[in-house]
């Protein structure tokens, strides 16, 4: 067979590996979110572990020399395809082996679990890319490492698009894996056919891998069987995993493994509805952003003309009515939209806006607890109207972190409302209005002849005047406002999470810093540029995702678009860099300068235009950043000599830099200093990179000696 045909077949394997790996990664993230606390810290840890292990796998390929063969590449691809469903099932079923069923898990066990369950797949995946290069170079010594980088990106883009725009809507996780791995098995098979050194055992291997992928589909639903009760409904919606568990007469809605509410939810439903509505004389319209079991029965007692219930996920609204968790009442309008986007686009005024959302421990949820959201809510309240929301409460003592959280929320909402009443309990309710608010809720209900089981009987014992006053007095006077650009609550939620598990991330951060320093000391200056570029690229991606959330509401569908745009920029960037790589160091300097400029433009645009920026401005920014990042890779590789070890080191620098950037931006910079300063931090990082490369006096001559 002609050499060019063989190379093409290797290239097909690389692209197929990219498709398979991105789909596997996205499904692994979703699975982890269903098994663990889905806060940004955990998401960042998953991405970090994925990229780091990938980088480590890449480094392992350094030891491979002449032993690399087509045959082994086929095996590698087959094993990789088989490992993807095994990884997913491991994430799902090992949780109850290592941890206590029904219990949340703290930071270090989560970290260890992530590393243990994804290590085999990620190490092998990281190994596969440079191995493919080595095999290609063994066949054609002048084969460029950049080409592999480009093809890998092409596979990644295809995988991202395949999952985000079709698989997530159409099929279950294991079916997605089956589909995404077919090209890889087919590519391995084609390569096997094309080479003389192959043995039939590879075919058997490929069939076995196919069997494992199909077995995944077979055990998909049985592997979700609940610990207690019966799973009467299961769907992977585009927003997460929805399950309805029936235990006797009780139906409970689970989203991403977390019980949301059941049909036996009287106490909570009464508190949510009667605390705000009892304050109003007449009620025509009520807006509910998301809901809790039983709330409609309570709202009905006020006979409002309209109740607008906004829920982003149509699958949730479908099941909550179908299984009787919510009742359809007269005047009810179901609106499947992001609550914030809905408010932005409607002119309706409401007597009451009631927010029923989980704790603001993700950027996504935090958007409903910021100054800009409260301002938006106020604009949609009729005169004398009331806004109500709640967060996790306490029984007998409020911790310092929880107090900071409540104080921040209090001051944030107080900017827009004259009166705020804090009602303590298992949930702390914040009632906000420009009219005075009466804390004697049972008396208000008596006056309206509204009967309740919980409030009338328990309010005076659980929510006493003494407790209300004590909580109000404890509010910290100078606590920070939870702003869009600087999400105080996210930082506090991280602290609270660590506090709940009596642990601290200090050890992890220290270990990470030491390892990073050791790594940075050992790499070349060109690799440092790639490390910083990987970091800035990933950091910018997270910045864009976050900014998008602030300005355009929920971005679940757009995340696919953003990721695709970021990946898409790398491809032409790498091709362009490859064509002008002989410019060498000057091009690296120039690209660093452009990156700095782009980040400066990002900051200036947000400061100057904010809300008025169109969506495509962010996409153009993302594309431009990744274009420049992509351009640097072939240049740095050329300066390094372009040989296998250099290419391997370059791949790993890029991946490790991306891992570092993920952690740095999402769990450290954005929560603690906000998005504008995060962008400034990335600029600083690039300035350091610029200095490193600018003051590098070594004249690097491309190496010409092959180590093969």
């Amino acid at each position, binding site marked *: 067979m002609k050499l060019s045909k063989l190379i093409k077949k290797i290239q097909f394997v690389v692209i197929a590996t990219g498709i398979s790996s991105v789909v596997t990664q996205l499904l692994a993230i979703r699975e982890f979110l269903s098994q663990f606390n889905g806060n940004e810290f955990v998401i960042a840890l998953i991405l970090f572990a994925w990229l780091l292990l990938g980088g480590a796998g890449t480094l392992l390929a350094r030891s491979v020399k002449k032993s690399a063969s087509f045959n082994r590449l086929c095996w590698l691809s087959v094993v990789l395809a088989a490992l993807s469903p095994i990884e997913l099932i491991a994430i799902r079923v090992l949780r109850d082996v290592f941890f206590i069923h029904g219990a949340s898990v703290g930071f270090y066990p989560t970290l260890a679990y992530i590393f243990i369950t994804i290590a085999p797949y990620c190490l092998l995946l990281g190994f596969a890319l440079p191995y493919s290069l080595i095999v290609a170079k063994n066949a054609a010594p002048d084969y460029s490492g950049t080409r592999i980088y480009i093809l890998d990106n092409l596979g990644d883009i295809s995988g991202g698009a395949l999952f985000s725009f079709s698989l997530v809507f159409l099929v279950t996780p294991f079916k997605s894996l089956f589909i995404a791995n077919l090209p890889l098995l087919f590519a391995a098979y084609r390569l096997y056919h094309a080479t003389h050194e192959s043995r039939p055992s590879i075919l058997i291997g490929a069939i076995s891998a196919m069997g494992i992928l199909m077995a995944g589909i077979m055990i998909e639903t049985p592997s979700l069987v609940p610990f207690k009760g019966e799973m009467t409904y299961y769907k992977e919606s585009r927003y997460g995993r929805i399950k309805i568990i029936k*235990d006797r007469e009780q139906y409970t809605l689970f989203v991403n493994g977390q*019980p949301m509410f059941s049909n036996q939810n009287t106490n909570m439903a009464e508190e949510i509805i009667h605390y705000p509505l009892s304050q109003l004389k007449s009620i025509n319209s009520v807006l509910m952003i998301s809901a809790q079991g039983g709330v409609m029965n309570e709202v009905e007692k006020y006979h409002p003309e309209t109740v607008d219930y906004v829920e982003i996920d149509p699958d949730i609204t479908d099941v909550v009515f179908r299984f009787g968790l919510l009742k359809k009442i007269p005047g009810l309008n179901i609106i499947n939209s992001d609550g914030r986007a809905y408010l932005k686009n409607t002119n309706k005024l409401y007597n009451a806006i009631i927010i029923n959302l989980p704790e603001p421990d993700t950027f996504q949820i935090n958007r409903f607890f910021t100054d800009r959201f409260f301002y938006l809510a106020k604009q949609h309240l009729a005169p004398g109207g009331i806004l109500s929301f709640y967060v996790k409460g306490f029984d007998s003592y409020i*911790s310092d972190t929880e107090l900071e959280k409540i104080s921040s929320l209090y001051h944030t909402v107080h900017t827009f409302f004259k009166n705020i009443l804090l009602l303590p309990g298992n949930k702390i309710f914040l009632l906000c209005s420009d009219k005075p608010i009466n804390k004697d809720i049972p008396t208000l209900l008596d006056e309206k002849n509204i009967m309740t089981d919980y409030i009338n009987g328990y309010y005076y014992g659980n929510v006493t005047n003494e407790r209300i006053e004590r909580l109000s007095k404890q509010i910290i006077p100078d606590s920070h406002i939870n702003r869009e650009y600087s999400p105080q609550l996210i930082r506090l939620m991280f602290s609270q999470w660590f506090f*709940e598990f009596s642990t601290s991330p200090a050890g992890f951060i220290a270990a990470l810093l030491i390892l990073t320093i050791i790594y940075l000391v050992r790499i070349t200056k060109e690799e440092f540029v790639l490390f910083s570029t990987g970091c800035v690229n990933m950091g910018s991606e997270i910045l864009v995702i976050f900014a998008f959330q602030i300005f355009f509401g929920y971005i679940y569908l757009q995340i696919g678009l953003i990721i695709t745009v970021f990946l898409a920029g790398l491809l032409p960037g790498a091709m362009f860099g490859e064509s002008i790589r002989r410019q060498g160091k000057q091009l690296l300097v120039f690209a660093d300068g452009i990156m700095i400029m782009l980040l400066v433009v990002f900051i200036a645009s947000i400061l100057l235009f904010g809300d008025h920026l169109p969506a495509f401005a962010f996409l153009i920014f993302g594309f431009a950043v990744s274009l420049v990042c992509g351009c640097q890779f072939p240049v740095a590789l050329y300066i390094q000599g372009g040989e296998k070890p250099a290419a391997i080191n370059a791949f790993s620098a890029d991946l490790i830099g991306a891992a570092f950037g993920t952690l740095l931006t999402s769990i450290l910079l954005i929560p603690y200093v906000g998005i504008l300063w995060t962008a400034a931090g990335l600029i600083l990082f690039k300035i350091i990179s610029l200095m490193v490369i600018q003051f590098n006096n070594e004249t690097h001559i491309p190496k010409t000696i092959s180590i093969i």
Partner: protein
Amino acid sequence: MKPISRRQFLSSSALALAYNTLPSQAFCALKNIADAKSGQKNIAGKIFKNDGPQKLWKWAREGCNYLTLPGDAVVCGICPNSCILEKGDRSICRSKVNFDGKLYTLTYGNPCSINLDPIEKKPLFHFKPKTRALSIATTGCNFRCLNCQNWQISQAKPEEVRHYDLFPEKVIIKAKEKNAASIAYTYSEATTYYEYMIDTARLAKKNGICNLWISNGYINEEPLLELCKVLDAANVNLKSFSDAVYRELNGGRLDPVLNTFKIMHQQKVHFEMTTLVVPGYVDDPDMIKEMCRWILKNLGPDHPLHFLRFFPRYKLDRLPPTPVSLLTQFRNLAIKEGIRYVYVGNVAGHEGNNTYCHHCGKLLVERKGYYIPTYNIKNSRCKFCDTVIPGVWT
């Protein structure tokens, strides 16, 4: 310092020997392997090595019921954890430290939570209904319950929280100011601030104020007997009737808790029992049946039993709430077994919130939350059939 029993001394000494011979990490690793082999997960707390304060603060007092071991180590004798503390170590409950070879409590006179609660909230349904209890708590717990509703203080060290300065005399003054009929030692685990509790309780007794112990019941016999002398009522958790569940969800053991019930029964302290029905863990009717039979055999039919509805909380937040019909079933089951007063808690408006005469079956106490609209007990007897209703009613 109080002497400890010979049995306690022997077990403590054996533990101390093993502890000093084996490096602590190896000890823990061996223990974990043993747990894994037995298929059980154990979340029991561990001693905090070298975590004691550099100097003692105003709210430190020398502990009672402890033993000094060779080498300045001490063994705390308050609860079955029997913490062996070397110099500078802190106990599992986080409240006790070995300071210069002596055991000190760091929670004497520094409650971090004070509230005036309806007595029904404890829950105590057969003890002075409609009265209020001054409820106090310091930090600390000898368990690690995954569903703790007071984890902010139970799993905290005394130095980590905002607290009041309230020595026993002041507690009495406060209780009188608030017109509280009793003082409840509650929220966190009262056993861990035993010294503060017993001194306050003694003073309260002298001042005609009742003492309520709201506890997990994980206490040694001697301190319990001493406490019983000043206790008026207690609500003690019987978290499960399975030692494995105790280890997995609470980090404790069942037998010492059962022993607590027996002692309190012998000492004629009024107590009620509470079982949180956790789906998947404490929801087996056979286990509940076995539990009821044990109660009847060892404690008799008169101690009220409360089945509480579980809600996802703290770390145990990935389970659904308990179905209400299961609580009803357990109540019926317990009544059928012979326990006379069985209640359902955390379910507003449930029939199981009320008290019915065990003899004539008529409604004695109707409860709408903490509000009592109907009350048909006179002189501790049923108004309808004159049967004596167990409890303290006036």
